[in-house]
């Protein structure tokens, strides 16, 4: 039943997409607007199909319908309800199903939003592009990554449940959907970019149409990445929130190019420059989401030899190559129309700073991509095994990150076209002192090391610039000084700065220790005392928990756990964290007390400022929401570089 329902949904979605493409194409070819307008109806068909498939899958998980292979492999009667629902996206096929549902959702919203312009060739081509992406994903689900493969369960069979790590924390229910809302959301600006290239309407029109869509997708991607970091911090128990794991890198890559685009698009809107570059960034962002899915879902990263295990990998890689080829081909075809109308007058200008920003973001994306695929390339060409791990990424990205902080300090005060040294000295006065004060404060608090101190100083400098912009805007516009792209963007900058400072502090000033404690004994780390009081075991339906009671600093008691999962036999610690704005104390059990040895193995990690990472993430999301509101628009008749009115210069 579930299987039939799911497959019907997938076929409906695939068929709807294929029909939509041919109908819209026919409409375009024969100039029949009534055919082009049918795209909206077809988008509802695709969404209906995708919803049916997802509903069937969830129903199968809830009913523990083991006639589905996917449920038999990832479901279990003992999985708690919430994680049971989240089990759908705990493995390859189900996560592609989630991808399909979100894609269909975006498709319907686009078709609805542009319902009055469906016979406009730009919108028609954008819909064709989106339907084509639908064809790929629903086609993939009906072939290589079919979530509805059948299974004949033996009587009394019970599945193993999802990977124990994935049923350990509530964030697992929210992090993947958020991330996918971001990933998939970039399909919309990509579709419009392709449409602009196909129709030859490569001016600034399509940019303005998709501005908010891009920001929306970017906001979800940001939230998804930060929730992912939070999840790994809370669950993995080694004090880390970012391991430069290929899966994490795959989510960071489109974020980097997307962020570069959000900045460079302003140069194009304002000065008509960087057209090819912006199109390339959007195409790169979309293709990197596909490449990321390929890298993380095909098993290619864990080992090159896992490549032949499934056919999903080659198909995704093929689609990636197709997207890249189409994008490059179209950009080449329209090359003559993409020549910019303006040019940069001076590197020391707003557009010059955006250009520098783009160089740094492109460099970051390049380093992350290179580091991720390098071991594969080396193994494939020379047969050598080597690892490119966190030490590499930290060393390479640190100078680039510091450069970004410096740019965030200077760029917001730069005018368009040209700035003078006099102007910079005037506007950077307070931001510079703020930066210096930040370094002084850090030194007084006992911070050492040039790199973290530079991060604090540049963070203060950049925060000064962002606050200056917000202060000036609110002084002039009241509460409206917080909304709009520029001011909301400054709030996002503040969030980034908070995260940057928290990263520098938590990575540079981490202290840790491993202890073997008998009941009543005390361990000391970084000025904190931890006393092991007692331990007990609790039986849960799917696991046995061992809880240790740890008294921290003579006050509250925390209970880190060690879970042994019955089905898989795996032992997974659930760390306990005493979080505060100053520092986090993470306790994780390494060995459980037993009859023969009653002592507890406890790992303790103390890191300053980790909580500020999540606060910074929240500020970034708030800033993104503020940016989505329309701000005060400049008069379209003003010259692109019009100076502010004279009477306000000395305000």
């Amino acid at each position, binding site marked *: 039943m579930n299987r039939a329902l799911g497959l019907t949904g997938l076929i409906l979605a695939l068929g709807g997409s294929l029909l939509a493409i041919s109908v819209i194409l026919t409409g375009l070819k024969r100039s029949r607007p009534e055919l082009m307008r049918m795209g909206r109806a077809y988008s509802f068909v695709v969404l209906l199909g995708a919803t049916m498939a997802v509903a069937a899958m969830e129903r199968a998980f809830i009913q523990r319908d083991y006639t589905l292979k996917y449920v038999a492999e990832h479901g279990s009667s003992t999985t708690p309800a919430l994680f049971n629902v989240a089990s759908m996206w705990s493995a390859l096929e189900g996560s592609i199903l989630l991808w399909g549902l979100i894609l269909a959702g975006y498709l319907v919203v686009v078709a609805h939003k542009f319902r009055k312009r469906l016979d406009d060739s730009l919108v028609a081509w954008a819909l064709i592009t989106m339907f084509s992406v639908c064809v790929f994903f629903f086609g993939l689900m009906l072939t290589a990554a079919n979530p509805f493969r059948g299974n004949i369960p033996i009587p009394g069979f019970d599945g193993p449940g999802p990977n124990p790590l994935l049923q350990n924390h509530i964030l697992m229910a929210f992090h993947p959907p958020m991330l996918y809302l971001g990933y998939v959301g970039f399909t919309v600006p990509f579709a419009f970019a392709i449409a602009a290239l196909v129709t030859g309407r490569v001016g600034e029109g399509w940019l303005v149409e998709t501005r908010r869509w891009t920001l929306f997708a970017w906001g979800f991607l940001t939230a998804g990445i930060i929730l992912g970091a939070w999840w790994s911090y809370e669950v993995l128990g080694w004090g880390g929130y970012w391991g430069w794991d290929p899966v994490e890198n795959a989510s960071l890559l489109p974020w980097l190019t997307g962020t570069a685009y959000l900045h460079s698009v302003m140069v194009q809107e304002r000065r008509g420059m960087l057209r090819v570059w912006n199109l390339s960034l959007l195409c790169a962002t979309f293709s990197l989401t596909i490449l990321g899915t390929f890298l993380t879902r095909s098993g290619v990263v864990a080992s090159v030899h896992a490549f032949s295990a499934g056919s999903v990998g080659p198909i995704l890689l093929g689609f990636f190559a197709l997207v890249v080829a189409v994008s490059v081909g179209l950009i080449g075809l329209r090359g003559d129309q993409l020549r910019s109308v303006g040019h940069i007058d001076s590197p020391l200008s707003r557009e010059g700073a955006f250009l520098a920003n783009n160089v740094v973001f492109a*460099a970051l994306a390049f380093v992350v991509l290179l580091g991720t695929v390098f071991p594969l390339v080396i193994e494939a060409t*020379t047969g050598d095994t080597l690892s490119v791990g966190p030490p590499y990424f930290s060393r390479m990205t640190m100078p680039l990150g510091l450069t970004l902080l410096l740019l965030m300090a200077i760029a917001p005060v730069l005018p368009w076209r040209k700035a003078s040294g006099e102007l910079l000295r005037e506007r950077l006065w307070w931001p510079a002192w703020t930066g*210096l004060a930040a370094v002084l404060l850090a*030194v007084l608090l006992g911070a*050492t090391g040039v790199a973290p101190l530079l991060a604090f100083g540049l963070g203060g400098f950049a925060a000064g610039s962002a606050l200056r912009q917000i202060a000036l805007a609110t002084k002039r516009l009241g509460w409206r000084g917080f909304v709009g792209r520029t001011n909301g963007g400054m709030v996002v900058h503040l969030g980034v700065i908070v995260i940057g400072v928290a990263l520098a502090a938590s990575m540079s000033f981490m202290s840790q220790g491993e202890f073997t404690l008998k009941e009543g004994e005390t361990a000391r780390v970084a000025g904190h005392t931890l006393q092991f009081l007692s331990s007990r075991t609790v039986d849960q339906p799917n696991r046995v928990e061992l809880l240790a009671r740890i008294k921290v600093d003579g006050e509250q008691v925390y209970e880190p756990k060690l879970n042994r999962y019955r089905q898989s036999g795996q032992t997974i610690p659930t760390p306990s964290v005493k979080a505060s704005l100053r520092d986090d104390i993470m306790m994780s059990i390494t060995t459980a007390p037993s009859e023969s040895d009653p002592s507890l193995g406890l790992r303790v990690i103390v890191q300053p400022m980790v909580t500020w990472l999540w606060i910074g993430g929240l500020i970034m999301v708030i800033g993104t929401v503020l940016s989505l509101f329309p701000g005060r628009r*400049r008069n379209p008749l003003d010259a692109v570089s019009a100076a502010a009115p004279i009477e306000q210069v000395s305000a």
Partner: protein
Amino acid sequence: MNKRHTQRQKWWWWSLMGVILVVLLVSAAGTSPTEGNSDDRLFAIAAQIKCVQCVGESVAGSAAPIAIQFRSEIASQMNQGRTNDEILNFFADRYEGVLLTPPSTGVGSLVWVIPVIAIAGAALLLAESLRVRRSRGPVQQPSPEDEALVEVALEARHSETSVTSTDTTDDP
């Protein structure tokens, strides 16, 4: 520019800022532990070694038995007074590709070299293209018709509204 802001233009204020910054940075320059047998040094070394039986975890981050065994090996070598490099080489000789820092020699060193060359190349190209564009001057000169159009539009705008619409992206 407001008169009360003239001190902002004085070079010695900015030099003072620079001097204070350098003094602070030099006075607080720290080093990571390279000797002794502190847990901090242990985990700093362990973070550079891959946990060979885990996926994507370092010896510092993993709770696997092999990682615990590696950590005790590192601890005993630290107690023997061996340097960080000696300890890392000990593991590198026994397990292929176990170091998370790619090598600085051989084919593997390309991962360090390529980004540096690429970034420097991109920056040079960009600087060159900016220079060429600037020397070429404005791309198009407005024709008299264009200027007339602009006149009409500005005219229309000034008569149409008295609200001063200012741009939020520019500073007052």
